[in-house]
């Protein structure tokens, strides 16, 4: 990788971190690698990471990590520039991979959100939709989660440094519950839980505290959302509540969006 960065003596691969519309939590996960942070900073050249450093080196970059969704014309143009200057582009977190919680505007009447919050919506330069990065440019690797998992982030950084494909799960949270011995909250307690359709990665931390999974990591590879929705209905969960359950941080992920739209009539009637 070193011959690409053109930095002369510095042979370390370069890493850039970018932020679009988001909460900073996924970038913070990189800073949360407390024990590994200085080792990472030694193994890669951090070329652009505004939250951490006021030094910034222009591209090209070996790896770009992108947090956040596209909600403005400027960011739509910026992600194109990031793509052109990056050898490998990795999206990190639910905003970058699915549009984030701010994609709820995609389900509302255009302009209504801005009018609710701001006295002068005409001052804003914001798109009517919040869309994932892959809707705009080619993405090499997606790291899911709201927030992403520290262990998975380290796996991605280690794999990219070693030039191998990172090992990331595509199975559901259910498998993680089974492996940690958590009693199923859906079967045993009829607690609404998205675990059967949600990608593993968090460690199944919600059922471990007795609450249902609320889908931070988005749909698993083979999510049967319709089957889960029928089960929820049989347990007495209202169509509106089913819509809200599928419609949070990964509302824009295709499997979750399709399922929530299938139940939304009740919500629109409100």
């Amino acid at each position, binding site marked *: 990788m070193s011959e690409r960065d053109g930095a002369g003596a510095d042979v370390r691969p370069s890493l850039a971190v970018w932020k679009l519309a988001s909460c900073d939590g*996924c970038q913070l996960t990189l*800073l949360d690698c407390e024990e590994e942070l200085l080792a990472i900073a030694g193994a890669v050249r*951090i070329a652009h990471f505004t939250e951490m450093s006021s030094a910034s080196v222009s591209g090209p970059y070996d790896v770009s990590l992108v947090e956040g969704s596209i909600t403005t014309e400027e960011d739509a143009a910026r992600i194109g520039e990031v793509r052109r200057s990056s050898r490998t582009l990795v999206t990190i977190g639910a905003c970058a991979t699915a549009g984030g919680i701010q994609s709820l505007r995609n389900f509302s009447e255009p302009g209504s959100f801005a009018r609710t*919050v701001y*006295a002068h919506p005409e001052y804003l330069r*914001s798109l009517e939709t919040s869309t994932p990065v892959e809707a705009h440019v080619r993405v090499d690797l997606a790291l899911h989660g709201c927030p992403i998992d520290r262990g998975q982030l380290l796996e991605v950084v280690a794999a990219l440094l070693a030039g191998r494909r990172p090992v990331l799960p595509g199975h559901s949270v259910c498998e993680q519950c089974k492996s940690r011995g958590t009693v199923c909250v859906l079967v045993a307690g009829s607690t609404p839980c998205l675990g059967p359709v949600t990608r593993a990665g968090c460690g199944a931390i919600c059922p471990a*505290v*007795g*609450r249902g999974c*609320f889908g931070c990591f988005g749909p698993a590879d083979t999510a049967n959302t319709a089957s889960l929705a029928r089960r929820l209905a049989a347990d007495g969960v209202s169509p509106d509540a089913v819509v809200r359950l599928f419609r949070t941080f990964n509302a824009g992920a295709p499997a979750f969006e399709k399922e929530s739209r299938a139940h939304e009539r009740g919500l629109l009637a409100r």
Partner: protein
Amino acid sequence: MSEGSLRAERTVAVEGIARVEGEGSLRAVVRDGSVSDVELTIFEPPRFFEALLQGRDRLEPPDITARICGICPVAYQMSSCRAVEDALGIDVGPDIAALRRLLYCGEWIQSHALHVTLLHAPDFFGCADAVELASLDSAAVERALRLKRVGNLVMETVGGRAVHPVNVRVGGFYRAPTREEVGALEGPLREALDLARKTVEWTSGFDFPDVTGDYLFVALHDPDRYAIDSGRVVSSAGLDTDAAGFLEAAVEEHVERSTALHSRLFGRDEYLTGPLARFALNEGQLGPVARRAATGAGLVGACRNPFRSIVVRSVELVEACEQALGIVGSYAPPAPGAVEVPARAGTGAGATEAPRGLLLHRYEIGPDGLIDAARIVPPTAQNQLSIEADLRRVVERGLELSDSALAARCEQAVRNHDPCISCAAHFLDVEVVRT
């Protein structure tokens, strides 16, 4: 004298203030040697939280509003819980309240350790970042990383996850951690307390630009302790009210340059929240270890030099460790871990102290248990006008500096307030225009 000051017209610009959370810009206009205008512009894309909360269940605000800020999700969870509980007439009682405060101390430790050493301290050494700082003073950076780890450990133990905890609910917790789990925090917190005291000693020896702000301070005040998540909203001008009362007094305005709404008290006065305000109004409530650390650092009475906020923030690190140790020492799992949450209509407000300042939420809940209206007033939006006033003072006192030095000083002045621009709605680039 630098070349810059000899020109009648001068522009200094910084594209993107680093080491803050989110994106904004800054512009100062200097005309004939005096500052005529200063603007802090926040154009972080708006995410419309108050709108997307409409029609959501009354139990959802802690999970949804946590996503406003990955650095201080607990602050959002705590203010939203308090507001919903106020609306529904719930009192969680002292045991759940103590466990919540322990979680909040974890966030203060994590956030303050991050800001003091990794984001703010590099300014005082002329470093670009903490990695460069580590090459000069590795012990200081390692101390901060260890402190941060302990803060995250508290959040993981009580909240189930460091970023966007999952164990918080309206009414309390899904599962109260066991006595053993909480007891295991005592050793790490004792170590953290010692590291925090060393951090106070370290930061108190920095060189501080001589700048004094005439701030109107606003903070929560609790006679029983240094307020984090309890008490009334008070000001240095004698205001004393509750969250709902303060929300009526803090009038927000939408200006063209910012997606953060500016707050003025009574539609008139700019005010400051955060560590300087808390210390000025609550110094008497500091725990004994934090008080000794403050005195040792020369902090007695209100501190009005914004550059010394790094010392105050370090004292608050000590305070957070001390409060956390107190809770851990007498912990018994609250039973049940959460009180019942009735389905009824109501309107309520809640205020807590996020690491960077006062955070208020207000909700109107309909008879169907769904949210009809939400209002969120984050610290950086409230502080924006005071930060602009600071910038004006910094530029006025720094006219002899070169363009690059003045721009760097301005950036540092913004970082003094640990702005969370994602919270405020919101890209910071600095531009000084001299005409």
